[in-house]
């Protein structure tokens, strides 16, 4: 039985390269290679411990800070816990904007409708279409980690096209106003992904919602399947 697409895809190749750079930087700042500790609390901030642990091990981390504390923390002072925002690729620039990390959050189009101008959408009828438009229903909601504060503001990529969340995000669904773009049931919808590929970004979602990127990844829900990809 294949369920609806709900995926958090971790780009392990880029992640590993980044983590190695972070480790080397810490070493060149005087940390001993033996002391590096990776923060993997909260299921590696939602990324999945199973996926992320090998990434950090390969990139030179000897210790892990888990929900239970530092596993081999005989002597706390011998561990240097790397800042989690830096480690997961969300370091901020001088303007406070963060980078985009190494995950892609994907859902599936479960219905598509062509609606007239003025069509009101979702709870409270807070949104209405400006023109005749195609709207796509996505099978993800705030219980899956699409923060309700992104209602009516966050961009979504479906296929090659960009739309905006239309109206309130519900617990398990939300609607995207796609204008005249062609969209089909079963298409993948990207909540956040790679800036280089033109996807909506987690840093933008963070700026729109006021929720830090690490809190956004940590909130990705239990129904969302974590996978690794080299792509």
């Amino acid at each position: 039985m294949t369920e609806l697409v709900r995926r958090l895809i971790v780009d392990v190749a880029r992640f590993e390269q980044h983590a190695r750079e972070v480790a080397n930087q810490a070493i060149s700042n005087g940390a001993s290679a033996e002391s590096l500790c990776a923060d993997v609390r909260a299921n590696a901030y939602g990324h999945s411990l199973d996926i992320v642990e090998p990434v950090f091990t390969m990139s030179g981390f000897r210790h892990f800070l888990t929900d239970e504390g530092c596993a081999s923390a005989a002597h706390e002072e011998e561990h240097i816990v790397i800042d989690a925002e830096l480690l997961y690729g969300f370091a901020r620039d001088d303007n406070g904007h963060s980078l985009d990390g190494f995950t892609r959050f994907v859902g599936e189009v479960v219905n598509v409708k062509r609606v007239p101008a003025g069509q009101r959408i979702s709870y409270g009828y807070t949104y209405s279409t400006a023109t005749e438009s195609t709207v796509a229903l996505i099978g993800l909601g705030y219980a899956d980690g699409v923060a309700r504060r992104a209602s009516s503001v966050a961009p979504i990529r479906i296929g090659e096209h960009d739309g905006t969340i239309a109206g309130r995000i519900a617990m398990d669904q939300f609607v995207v106003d796609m204008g005249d773009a062609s969209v089909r049931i079963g298409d993948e919808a990207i909540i956040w992904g790679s800036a280089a590929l033109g996807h909506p970004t987690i840093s933008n979602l963070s700026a729109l919602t006021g929720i830090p990127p690490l809190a956004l990844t940590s909130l990705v829900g239990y129904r969302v399947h974590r996978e690794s990809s080299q792509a």
Partner: protein
Amino acid sequence: MTTPLISISHANLRHNVATLASRVAPSEVMMAVKTNAYGHGLVEVCQTALEAGATSFAVLEIAAAIDLRNAGISAPLFAWLFGDDEIPAGIDHQVDLGISRREQLSIAGAYGKPTNPAIVHLKIDTGLTRNGATVNQWPSLCEEAARLEKIGNIRVVGVWTHLADATPQDDEDALELFRAAVDIARQAGLTPSILHAGASSAGLRSDASRLDAVRFGIAAYGVSPFDSPTANDLGLRPVMTVSAPVTHVTADHALVGIGFGHGILTGDNDERFVRIGSDTYRVTDIGVDSMRIVPFENSPWPVLLGARAIIFGDGGPSAEQLGAWCGTIGDEVVTSVSPHIRRTHN
């Protein structure tokens, strides 16, 4: 106890379900238990709700329905969000299927058999613009359903919609459309016996929305669907309480051992509080596994190491209140709490 704890009050759950059931009788309560019963624990909630007067469950997904079947729940289970290829499993497990599109109907009709027909509730979109057939698609959906029902491969037991919780007039307009859709279904030869439209909001404020069943979700968990009246005004009691211990105390602040990694929502609002006993403390910062608190007005200081802070629920701020502090609603507060936190059911 040094870890965060979710305590689920089955006394309050029972009270809420019984209160709602008597308020809407003779309409029945098809309780919404999607998303692990709004984070409360699926199987435990369903068992108590059945004792308290719910007669069926709105589960959202076929996977959740199968979990309930495996736990021995035999009540009707209604699912409405699934991939086309999940439909056969739903039929195998006698799951009532909310169907919006012709393609879904074809699969149900191809897999269902007169010995084990697909149980179907057809959905009409009455304005929410999510799932549901449009007014244009509706007549042909009904005709195809009637044809498959004659063969015996499906049985159309219900017609339903979902309301927008906007204004009472908007709900009334949607119900008008709904009644017209039911007439069309009957003209096509269907004989649905379960008409359902309202969830918590309409179910509480509009008699006309109650029909044969109300799909109460959030109200049953003791969280108001409205800004006002509050849950307390409605006679509903909070079911989920989240608490965590004070893990560190200094002269001017303390840490409480719970954070966004446990699914506690963050927000940029300074007005945010927890309770320890009968005293209120301000939350100034939320990390992955701890939150920083400081005294508020004349709350006593220092707090005791190990004292339990109520993040929300019975004896603390309500889920609705915490939602408002975070720019959202109580529904998101309760469903976001991590399924990995220890839960006690009492």
